[in-house]
């Protein structure tokens, strides 16, 4: 039997859908970890990025840190977090650290790219600093801001897989355990599940972007560039 049919057999085996190493539990662990990491990263990164973008101060520092962050392997960041507690804790902290830079840099870039004339018009209409930020800069910069969160989310789902190396749960378990056991169907099944989840995450955010972004902005973007979303993203 070839690997593909073996993998299908593995995936459809009732035994692999039950218990603490079953697909539902592993999937839930993976999602739980990813959602927690992205939420924390948004809570920390978004206010920071908006503040830097709004005031225009600290932009160079933000960009430098995020570029340096790109050079540090995510595997190393996860392992470096192990002293904080094996498994979930280490992986969560590492994922938050990895997820913050794209959110901050895109929030910053999104706000900076807003047409200056628009801001002057807003100020001319008597809007204060906070109102300009919340009612003009954020809505106008939303596509880029959301692209940053999307980048982070996809990266988090992908990198959460590596948590299995430091005794974490999630779908990465099947791959890492499969490597150890030389169990090809288990390895491929895990890989297919992770890849599927990453692609679904990407699609979900594409949908969110469509719903959340003002139609006028979308048209303008389609005419212009449109692909900067993947610029900041790196595979994990």
């Amino acid at each position, binding site marked *: 039997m070839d*690997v593909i049919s073996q993998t299908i057999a593995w995936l459809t085996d009732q035994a692999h859908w039950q218990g603490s190493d079953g697909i539902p539990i592993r999937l839930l662990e993976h999602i739980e970890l990813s959602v927690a990491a992205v939420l924390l990263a948004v809570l920390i990164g978004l206010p920071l990025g908006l503040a830097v973008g709004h005031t225009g101060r600290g932009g160079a520092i933000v960009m430098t840190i995020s570029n340096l962050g*790109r*050079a*540090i*392997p*995510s*595997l*190393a960041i996860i*392992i*470096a977090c*192990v002293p904080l507690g094996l498994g979930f804790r280490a992986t969560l902290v590492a994922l938050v650290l990895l997820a913050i830079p794209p959110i901050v840099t895109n929030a910053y870039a999104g706000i900076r790219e807003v047409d200056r004339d628009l801001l002057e018009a807003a100020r001319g209409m008597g809007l204060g600093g906070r109102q300009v930020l919340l009612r003009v800069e954020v809505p106008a910069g939303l596509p880029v801001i959301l692209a940053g969160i999307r980048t982070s989310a*996809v990266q988090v*789902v*992908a*990198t959460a*897989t*590596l948590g299995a*190396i*430091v005794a974490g749960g999630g779908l*990465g378990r099947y*791959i*890492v355990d*499969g*490597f150890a056991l030389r169990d*090809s169907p288990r*390895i*491929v099944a*895990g*890989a*297919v599940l*992770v*890849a599927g989840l*990453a*692609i679904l995450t*990407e699609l979900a955010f594409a949908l969110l972007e469509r719903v959340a972004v003002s139609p006028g902005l979308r048209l303008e973007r389609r005419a212009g560039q449109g*692909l900067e979303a*993947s*610029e900041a*993203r*790196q*595979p*994990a």
Partner: protein
Amino acid sequence: MIDVGWIAGHLGTIGGSAWEHVVLTVVAVGVGFAISLVLGLLASRLRWTYGPITAVTGLMYTIPSLALFAILVPYTGFSLLTAEIGLVSYTLLIITRNIVVGVDGVAPEIREAAAAMGLTRRQQLLRVELPLAVPVIMAGVRVATVTTIGLVTVTALIGQGGLGQQILLGYQLQFPTRFFVGVVGSVILAVGADLGLLRLQRWLTPWERAKVG
């Protein structure tokens, strides 16, 4: 915490890992660049192919690296080939897109001038459009290279990995020195490669230098 004696006594091992890291990266970016060049030129000639090319390379880009390596293992084993197939596939989206954007960015007047001087379509591409696109293309190559250097460490899980081996061994043997050697080494490689490619770009585009200087 850092055992300097171990480092001094194992310079050969560390150098070997670093060399393996460099080779994995150079092959991946080199092959990735060659494929991207073909895809990029195809997309800029036949515009309708750009959508499908971006969709497929974008899909590869989204698949987590460990998953991609894992899918390949039953076919190509815990081998260099498995590592390279994965690494190459991650360079395609960035480099292809930057080639297309770079070539598209050449001003129409320049194209017209080139055509008026009697250059054939091929000469226009090789002598005018590609050279002028070098800064954008190199920006893509730099991002792809730095990303690849990071991803190489993940291939330690399939028995390759260069300095990633040191990172993983440091963890498995509970020996922080090896871990730090691996991390610092791969960061140095990433920063060094980025600066090196920037110099290469400056050297390839002397006219840009004149503009700034």
